[in-house]
């Protein structure tokens, strides 16, 4: 384990507390991280009566965008209309959007403290432009799929998984199947 040595070098003093550590710390034991995530999920159940999500917040964000650009179109949209508030800002004022903002902040805090905030492009061995193109394409397919599935890895996978929701377990099995089926097409990007 090199953790001890690293912490020794970056012992936090008043000065270094706000400065990101220079060497990236190794990741946490996945099982411990999983217990952490699980306890957070359980806290959501106990306090709110529902779990955590991510893609639902993106629907509100997109809905607010459509509402800002074309209010009449948004109000007439069968899909976005139920998500809309009186104004685009009110549309964004939902539990899930705030939770997603929290995910961003929490992710940043953890990455910063571990020296893992590093601007760049992951998987760029196939070239930066092809990689970004893949990212947009993958994101588009995924965004579309979240609405068909009524959730993503958070809202269906974790939340529905813990609730033993039938649709969530079907979604999760299909997710792994779909990913393994397509993985060889983009192997060069990742391995």
């Amino acid at each position, binding site marked *: 384990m090199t953790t001890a040595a690293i912490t020794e070098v970056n012992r936090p003093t008043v000065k270094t507390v706000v400065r990101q550590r220079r060497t990236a*710390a190794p990741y946490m034991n*996945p099982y411990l991280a999983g217990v952490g995530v699980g306890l957070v999920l359980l806290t959501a159940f106990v306090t709110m*009566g529902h779990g955590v999500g991510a893609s639902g917040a993106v629907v509100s964000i997109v809905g607010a965008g459509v509402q800002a650009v074309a209010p009449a179109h948004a109000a007439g949209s*069968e899909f976005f209309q139920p998500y809309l508030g009186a104004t685009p800002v009110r549309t964004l004022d939902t539990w899930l959007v705030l939770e997603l903002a929290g995910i961003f902040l929490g992710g940043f805090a953890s990455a910063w403290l571990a020296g893992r905030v590093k601007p*760049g492009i*992951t998987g760029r061995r196939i070239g930066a432009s092809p990689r970004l193109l893949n990212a947009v394409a993958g994101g588009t397919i995924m965004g579309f799929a979240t609405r068909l599935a009524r959730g993503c890895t958070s809202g269906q996978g974790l939340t529905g998984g813990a609730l033993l929701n039938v649709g969530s377990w079907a979604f999760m099995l*299909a997710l792994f199947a*779909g990913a393994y089926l397509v993985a060889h097409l983009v192997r060069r990007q990742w391995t």
Partner: protein
Amino acid sequence: MDLTAPFYQFGALGPGSGLVVAVLIGAAFGFFLERGGLGNGRKLASQFYLNDLTVFKVMFTAILTALLGLFWLGQVGVLDTSLILLSPTYLVPQIVGGLLFGAGFVIGGYCPGTSCIAVASGKLDALAVFGGMMAGILVYGEVYPSIRPFAESTSMGRISLPELLSVRPGVMVAAVTMLALGGFVLADRIEKRRGNRLVQPE
């Protein structure tokens, strides 16, 4: 009884404080996901080449933890599990959604929540995934009237696995526990056989 949860439903939490809870829960959620390495696109994708099964381990440990917590809090009477929101099942659309989601996941490299974390740690490709996701949802919203019949087909209502299989919830909880523990042992073995090619932070 003051102790009974979910607090929000029993009025112990007002709408305003519910929103504060949202940010706190999100932050803790994002923190632990990043700690486990789920903000790294290569680590997420390596799951699907069987080189690094961290995604599986984190996800199923989280599911197991929350599942056991829910079950036992319900048993001791602290939590009224019947008040917890269970999303309705639409079997075929959700299976098709899952297949597409998996494909998009491995091509893009992130799922919605983890893309946010990767954006927070400065990854441009994660921003591209997030942008694509917004586009995908916009497209869905625009074509919704025509795919609605399919999207709402095979509706099964709010149903859980123990209800579907008509077994006692406890039996299902035990079965899922065994399945997950077996999966963890197997995952550790696969990683070892492939030479522990775990993705490290850059």
